[in-house]
């Protein structure tokens, strides 16, 4: 049973590593300075661990609000330390709300995704 969990974690780590690699490559291209493999791996590992921090905080905030579902309000809270980040997340939230209003399709697509899982 624990092997399955490890395998899942490994796959998730690999997925994170992949996207981190692409983001680093893009940044490297923009500034004409490549990232060493070790550097990319370290950033990926840190991002993975940061997710743990996010998850625990989000869960705590939701529980504090007597909810069992983590919402965008909780995410806004974890972005509170940096003003720029806070504003960025708020803008993103409004963007998502706008999308929902303009196309009702989004919600049905969302439920389709969930039932596939």
């Amino acid at each position, binding site marked *: 049973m624990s092997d399955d969990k490890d395998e899942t974690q490994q796959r998730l780590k690999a997925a994170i590593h992949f996207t981190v690699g692409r983001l680093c490559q893009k940044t490297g291209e923009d500034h004409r300075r490549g*990232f*060493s493999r070790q550097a990319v791996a370290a950033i990926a590992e840190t991002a993975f661990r*940061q997710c743990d921090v996010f*998850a625990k905080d989000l869960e705590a905030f939701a529980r504090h609000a007597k909810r069992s579902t*983590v919402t965008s309000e909780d995410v806004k809270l974890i*972005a509170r330390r940096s003003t720029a980040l806070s504003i*960025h997340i708020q803008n993103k939230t409004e963007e998502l709300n706008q999308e929902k209003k303009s196309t009702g399709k989004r919600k049905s697509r969302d439920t389709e995704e969930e039932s596939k899982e």
Partner: protein
Amino acid sequence: MAEKNEDIGFKKDTVSKLLSSFFKEDKTRLSGDATLLVAEMLKVFVREAAVRSQKQAASEDCDQVDIEHFEKILPQLLMDF
């Protein structure tokens, strides 16, 4: 063609599974919007890490961004988040 920065990002599914694996309680769920926002937070986190590491490498006149550059900027990055 170079991809726009907005195109690269974390998949909603990956983020959702990742966060769920870290939750302490089984009953904790994640809304769709929250997942997308966390994906965005992660993207910003990684981008900050990359850009700051790159700047560090530049200040040391290095051609490549190495792990030492990342290590130097890591403490401030974690505090800023």
